[in-house]
Each structure stands twice: as C-alpha cells, then as structure tokens.
C-alpha cells in the first residue's frame, strides 16, 4: 500500500454492556485505509462489521483505542465535533437505505446540506446534480415508497455524496437488493471511487462483488481482524 492513509484505527475496541452482560463487539482492531482506495469488509453477522462502520463514521465512540482521520483524532472529539465530522467528511450508506419517507428524493438528498446551512435554492440545485449523477433524473420528486429498492439506494448514494465528503462508508448497501441491482449499486460505488478518487469502505457478504471491485478485503471474526487480503 503506497498511498497515505486517510483514516486509520489503532487497537480499536468497543464493548457494549447491557446490565451485567458485556459484549465485546470489536477487539484491538488495527486498520489503515489509503486515500482513494476501495476497501471491503467481510464477516459473518455479529462479527463487528457494523460497529466498525459506526465508529469510523463518528456515530459512536470506541471504548478504547483511537481513530485518526487525516491526522485528527476522531475518537477524542465531543458530540458537536462528531456531528461536524459526519456533516462534512463522511457519507454513509445503509442496508435499509434510511431515507425519510415523507421527503421526496430531492429533499432526502438535500438533507445533509440543510444541516450545513446551505440555502434552500442551492440545496435543491446541488441535490438535483447528484441525482442526475446516480441516474435518477426522472425520479427527483418521487417519495421513497414510489421507488424500487435499487432506486432508493441510489438516492441514498446521492445523499452520501452531496456534501462532497472525503470518505464513503457503506454498511451492506446490497443487503436488501437482488443480485442484478446489487452489482449495479456496487458498480456505481466503484465508478465514484475510480473517477473521483473518493475513498470507499464497504461492508458486504457478496464475495464475488468484493473480489471484483475492492483493493483490499478485511475479514472480521468475532470482533477481530483475522485476514487482510490485498487484491490490487
């Protein structure tokens, strides 16, 4: 790996405690993601993939260990700084799309700009541009319920991109899609990675898709990194 890491984690540990029971979701995970790379994360369910994504995305804080984003310690940031980090540096994509059902496609895409303080007119313009880019020019005013799964995920990708983030975190983006659509969605992410040099970290079960597009695959077992496969 020759590229400088955009995000790296050291001895990342997350312990969830509910009552007396403690569950170690992640244990001493070390990670370094080079700028502009496409990283795949694989592992059976409960292996800590989602926890890793939440920590990297600043939605959650680690129990111990550190995360550095462009040389800044994410794991030390307070709530407001984390919100700022999510707002400007990260774009997240989820398995269940997580679109707001009352909002149209363009409104959903413009949501991150709302919190960034962009004016309404400009929000719509930018959202429109990104919807064009993911191939939804004709579906801008549709609500999520009027869109297919693949289309919804495209809206979510447009939303992840609209803030011009430096890293895309996709947590099983194909989990709710058929194989045809899945390869289209991952293909879209790969195109974005390739054309804009945007760093993508994607969790997936689909070995074929991971192997086809990723530069590196990290395999998690019971919260620990067991294998790192360098593909390209």
């Amino acid at each position: 790996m020759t590229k400088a890491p955009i995000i790296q984690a050291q001895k990342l540990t997350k312990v969830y405690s509910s009552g007396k029971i403690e569950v170690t979701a992640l244990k001493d995970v070390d990670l370094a993601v080079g700028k502009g790379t496409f990283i795949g994360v694989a592992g059976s369910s409960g292996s800590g993939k989602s926890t890793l994504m939440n920590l990297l995305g600043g939605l959650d804080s680690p129990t111990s260990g550190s995360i550095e984003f462009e040389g800044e310690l994410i794991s030390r940031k307070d709530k407001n700084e984390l919100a700022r980090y999510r707002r400007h540096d990260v774009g997240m994509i989820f398995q269940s799309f997580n679109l707001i059902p009352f909002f149209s496609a363009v409104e959903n895409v413009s949501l991150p700009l709302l919190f960034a303080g962009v004016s309404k007119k400009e929000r719509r313009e930018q959202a429109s541009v990104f919807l064009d880019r993911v191939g939804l020019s004709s579906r801008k005013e549709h609500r999520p319920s009027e869109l297919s799964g693949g289309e919804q995920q495209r809206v979510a990708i447009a939303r992840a991109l609209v803030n011009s983030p430096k890293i895309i975190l996709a947590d099983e983006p194909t989990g709710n899609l058929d194989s045809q659509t899945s390869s289209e969605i991952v293909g879209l992410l790969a195109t974005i990675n390739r054309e804009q040099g945007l760093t993508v970290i994607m969790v997936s079960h689909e070995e074929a898709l991971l192997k086809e597009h990723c530069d590196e695959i990290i395999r998690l077992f019971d919260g620990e990194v067991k294998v790192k496969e360098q593909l390209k």
Partner: protein
Amino acid sequence: MKLIDYVDLSFSNLWKRKLRTFLTIFGVIIGIGALVAMVSFGKGMQKNVSDQFENLELFNYITVFSESFNPLGFGGRSPRGQRQRGRSRDSQEEVKGSEPKPLDDEVIAALRSIKGVESVFPDIRFPAEVRANEEQVFSLIQVLPAEFAQSTLMSLRAGKAYVSDEEDSLIISDSLLRRIGLKDLDTAIGQKVRISTLILDFSNFNPMNLASMIQGENLPIAKEDYEFTIVGITGRMGFGSPTPLRSDVFIPRGTSERMKKLPFTNMWDFFRRTEQNLGYSVVNIKVESPAFVNAVKTKVQEMGYRTFALIDQFEEIRTGFLFMDMILAAVGMIAIVVASLGIMNTMVMSILERYSEIGIMKAVGAGDGDIKKIFFFESSVIGFFGGVFGLALGWVVSGLINRIINYFLAKQGVPFIDYFNFPWWLCLGAVLFAVVVSLVSGIYPAVRAARVDPVVALRHD
C-alpha cells in the same frame, strides 16, 4: 441550519400529522381563550370602576357623617331626610358634653369655608310616590342642588339638568321611567310627573296606639301631591359605586324646601327623630382636587364628625382587584396546564414515531442542538397558532357574553358597559405566553429527542 429552514421544517412536520397537530393546537386555543377571557373580564371590571371614579370625580368627594348616624348599623346606609326646618330651629337644645354640633346649615357654611372645599351639599332623601299616567311607583327622591345636577357627577342619557334651584323640574333614572310606563326617552322629556309625598297628619294621631303603629297600621300619615316636569333622564349606575347620587329621582333644593314631607326613610328614624340629633345625617363635600382630601378630612374630624373618602379605600379596592385577577388567572391557568400537557404528549409521541428519522438526521450531520431546535420550533409553532387563535376565541366568546349580559341588564335600565377589556399588552402577552408555555412544554421532548442514539435508531432489523 438557517432560521427559515427550522420554520419550514416544523411546518412541514406538523402538517404531516394534521389531525394531531390540530387537536393539540385546539387544546392551546381553549387554554389561551379561557385565560384571555378571564383576564379581560378582570381588567374590564377594573377599568369600568376606575373610569367611573375618574369620570365622576369620585376621588374629590368626602362624606361627612353626624356622630349619631351609624351608616353600617341599623337602618343601613340610607340617610335620613331633611329636618323640618321651622321646628328644628325652635326646639334645638344645646349639645351636651363632647357631642358635636348637629350637621345643620351653619356647619355646612363652616365646611364650605375650609380651604380646598369646592362645594358642600347635604344628602337629603325622602320617600314619595312617583306617578305618570296610571303607573305609580314608590321611590326615594334625592334633593340635589342645581350646580351638582349640572356637574360631571350627573350623567344624562337625554334632556338637560335643571338650571335653577326653584323650578318644578326633576331628573329621573331611565329604569324608574320605564317602571312608571314611559318607555321612550325622548318623548318623556317635558312630560308631567306627579310626586306624592307622605306627611304626618296628626288629626287622628293617638300616641297610645304605638303597638299598632309598629306593625304599620294606623300611621298618622297622609299624602300631598306636587307636579313636576321631566327635564333630564339619567342612566343607572352599572355597579353599586359609592357616588353621592343614590336615588332614581332628583329634584332642586329650593323646590324641595317648599314641599311638605316626612323627614325619614324608615320606622327606626321615625322614633329617633324626636329625641335629639337634629340637622342632616350626611353631608357631601366636594374638594377642588384629590390633593385636598386629607387636609379637609382632618379639619372635619377635628370638628367632631366622622368622614369617609373613597380615595382612602382605593388601595383596598386595588388589592381586591389584584386578588380577583389572580383567581381569574388561576382558573385560566388550569386550562393552560392541560394544554401544555397536550403539547408534551404530542411531542413525545412524535419522538417515538420519528425515532429513525432523528437517527438519519444525526447520521447525515445534525448535531444535538439542531434536533433540539427542530423540536422547539415545532412546539412554538403549536403555541403561536394556539395563542393567536386562542386570543381570537377569547375575544369572540367574551364579546358574546358581553352582549348577552348587556341584553338582560338593558331591560333593567343599565346602560351598555364593556365588561371585558382587551388592552394591547393582554393581546401581545397572550400570544407570547402561549409560545413560552409551549417552549417549556417542549423542553423535555426536545432534550429527549436530542439524546436519541443514532446507532440504536438506525439498527436495521
């Protein structure tokens, strides 16, 4: 986030749940409406009374009581009438001990010479029958000098006050006018009215027959008729305010002195009058301005008379109004508390429904502060509309009540009075208060919404 975005977002969020939003706002409308109606009623009462006081210059009056007159005891407030002059002068005895001089014309002259006193007139009233056409009503006639009949004290609904103290003219209240069968105010002016006074008729008076007299039989009483012309019609006071005018018929002083009449208004007076205490029971003093009240009062008390000045009571009246305001506001507050619980309920429900939405917002970069503000804006929008429409409701309802009350009181001759008052601060305050109450109700929901853990909210299963 920009301010306009918060407003935009809260409107669209509330619009999504129209029925619930409407019901919640309706709760606030009722609460604010009740509060506004209550407070405006309190303020209306206060305004009516203090306006009346000021218009009638009531703070300029001092009431002087003769030492023997007990305004709160037996016989009530009603003072006795004028003594029969000739007799009282002749049989007047020297005042014994510390008893002050009776309140006679000499005392009145002395009172008039006190610095700051504008005028003095005795409070003279006597019972009589008032008759026009066939209708006949028993009433108290008050003797009122022409200068007072023409003063601001007397508010006329029609006609003019009599100008001389010698004319056979009277001013009558519209309610009494109605009772004697004259409904139309304008045509009543110039009509003749017969007043029958009661006089003592000693031709068949038997002093041994006291027992039957007490029961009201065999009274040595006869009637004497006098004819008057109606020159003015006064409205009756809406409240029992302590104005020096306490009657339905007013006649000039000179005319009154030429009439034969009984100088008492009840049986108790009748028996007491022979013992002592000649002169007037009550004398009204008008001072030039309220500033003179205390000095004049002290002088009058030094002369040995008891006094009453309304200005002394004003602080007490104010305290009374404050107390009334508080009770009225407390009733209104109950409705507000219920409405605020409604807001809280709606907003908490909204969090539960929008749990994942909050998670999404946080994931795309909303801070805790953004989420809090979104919820605060929603509750304040509820409060604002509740406040505005509540104010409107309170205004409409109190207007209706006002009309209904006045409709019934008008039948009794009470002039139209606004029982509700909407000062600008009440209107503005109602809306502001509604918003503040909603914001307070929104604190808990907003804090709770901001605390939503995005990891939990976005967990897909």
